[in-house]
């Protein structure tokens, strides 16, 4: 079963999160080549990889759905500002509701249903036991602000980028599982500003070209890319706000525990033009998999060893891997004897 509403697992404290054999099979492994190169690596967001693949549907819902919704609720309870939308983004939030509800109901009819009569909508989410009626585009007709309402029912983080002056501005988002960045810090920033810290990319003109490409994405032609990093423990929320809770864990990796403690964290990022507001919806769907689970696939184990071995020093630093990078390489070496 793709969406196994198995008992709720945790992404903090006792870290009970795990991947079933099916989840391992469908993991979006991010390395197409043996050595790592920074590239924009965008492609049309079209289904690929067959039935059950992470790329099959516009939004991917899987066995971790309930656990992730629980984790999101925990973050928002402590830090409500992890969801925010500037006033001029209201229509963009409704664009997002429309896009997400329509595709969820079409792609997973057994879990979600949407009935529309003009602007009178009824939305049912059987996984979370939600059954609401509201007036489309009337934010007062929902039990909470529109972005939060939808975001609490979707796996992954969502940002809505306003487009002005040939640039993109991060003016709305629900960001509870970021890989070391902060919505509060980046809110209102332009594309170039929030990519400021990425090393090696500026000099190659990658951002200038990427921005021109992104601002020209038309309605109905979403694109995607994969991004990755490593993380210690199955922690979803590695935000700067909670750094004091997870930063020190980087020193806890040993040759004995590296396989179970270090996770490859892959983000499936999708950019989709919103028709009514012209905003770009930027979704970041996060997958976590322990090295132990990765190496059950011999191809992945070999490939990952080679990528880690050749990773340039500035990137090791930027991704925060300095403390345990060599432990990871040593561990993976045993699965790649030829190299």
């Amino acid at each position, binding site marked *: 079963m793709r969406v196994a509403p198995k008992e709720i697992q945790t992404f903090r404290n006792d870290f009970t999160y795990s991947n079933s054999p099916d989840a391992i099979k469908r993991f979006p492994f991010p390395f197409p080549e043996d050595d790592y190169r920074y590239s924009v690596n965008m492609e049309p*967001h*079209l289904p690929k990889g067959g039935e059950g693949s992470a790329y099959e549907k516009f939004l991917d819902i899987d066995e971790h759905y309930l656990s992730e919704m629980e984790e999101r609720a925990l973050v928002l309870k402590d830090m409500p500002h992890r969801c925010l939308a500037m006033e001029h983004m209201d229509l963009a939030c409704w664009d997002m509701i429309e896009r997400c509800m329509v595709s969820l109901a079409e792609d997973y009819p057994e879990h979600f249903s949407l009935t529309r009569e003009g602007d009178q909508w009824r939305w049912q989410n059987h996984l979370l036991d939600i059954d609401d009626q509201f007036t489309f585009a009337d934010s007062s007709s929902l039990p909470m602000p529109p972005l939060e309402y939808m975001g609490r029912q979707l796996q992954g983080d969502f940002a809505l980028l306003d*487009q002005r002056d040939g640039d993109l501005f991060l003016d709305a988002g629900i960001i509870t599982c970021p890989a070391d960045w902060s919505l509060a810090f980046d809110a209102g920033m332009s594309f170039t500003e929030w990519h400021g810290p990425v090393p090696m990319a500026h000099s190659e003109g990658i951002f200038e070209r990427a921005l021109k490409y992104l601002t020209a994405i038309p309605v109905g032609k979403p694109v995607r890319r994969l991004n990755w990093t490593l993380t210690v423990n199955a922690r979803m929320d590695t935000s700067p706000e909670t750094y004091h809770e997870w930063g020190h864990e980087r020193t806890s990796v040993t040759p004995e525990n590296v396989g179970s403690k270090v996770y490859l964290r892959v983000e499936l990022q999708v950019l989709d033009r919103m*028709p*009514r507001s*012209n905003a770009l919806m930027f979704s970041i769907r996060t997958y976590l998999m322990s090295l132990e689970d990765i190496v059950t696939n011999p191809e992945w184990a070999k490939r990952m060893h080679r990528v880690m071995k050749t990773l340039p020093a500035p990137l090791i630093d930027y991704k925060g891997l300095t403390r345990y990078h060599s432990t990871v390489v040593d561990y993976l070496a045993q699965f790649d004897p030829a190299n």
Partner: protein
Amino acid sequence: MNIEQISVRVSAVEQVAPTIREFTLRPLSGELPPFSSGSHVVVEMPGAQKIHRNAYSLMSDPWDTSEYRIAVRLQEDSRGGSRFMHQSVAVGDRLNITPPANMFAPQWEAKKHILIAGGVGITPFLSYLPELMRRDADFELHYLYRGSQTGAYRKELAAELGARYFAYDSDAAERCELTELFQQRPLGTHFYICGPLSLIEGMTGLAAEFGIPASAIHYEEFAAPQPGKPFEIEIRHSGQVIRVGEEESMLEALEAAQINVPNLCRGGVCGQCVCSVESGEVDHRDNFLSAEEKASGRVVMPCVSRAKSERLIVDIQE
């Protein structure tokens, strides 16, 4: 989720000014996508000799998904597109259009919006108005036209907008004092201009003199590709040679040879169609590439630009 093309049926045709015709397009099935104010679509017109493709602003209410409306001005030096629309398209005909794209969206955080339309340049603003009113925004519309040729919708606009509407018929020697517009603006005003190049250049020049930041000035000109000397394109990796005639654009010639280049605006503003140039001299006519990129001679926007040399060798990966 992925939309390539939309098939529509022409459900109404109306002469709305001496040189302007309005077309109402309805979907063959289902509903059309909603769009944002200022969006355009590219209409594909199956002419006798070749397929014409022109971009036209959507001028209906963006929330109305039952139909789109566009207005086409008959260009005197038409390369065939606007003539086709005026002479060959009738109620009941089928056309293919692209999904909407937007290069001219309102800046919703502006304090005040001043819209300046020249002639058929009124069209994108017609899709602004319903949204400006829904949001209760502070705005003015200034409409410059020649009563003997253009000036569509002026009665309706006057009735609907009242004191927010300003009309200038140059055939009646009415002039719009741009300097006054710039002087009286409250801080945080954004200006939007759509019309002929002369109007856009006049306004942007004057705005610079008044110290109005470029980020508060927005304009859209659908530069229809201009004719020029014929030349040849050679595709580097295949060696294929394609001739570009006087009347057609480089993009159209590529398409006729079954080489598809991504494109959105077909007017040199969106940046989708960029191709790299191996050799040959480019005659740049776009508004997209920077001065340095143009000077480098390494890239070309084939939707509007041409060659000064006999042959351009380009690198197109399919």
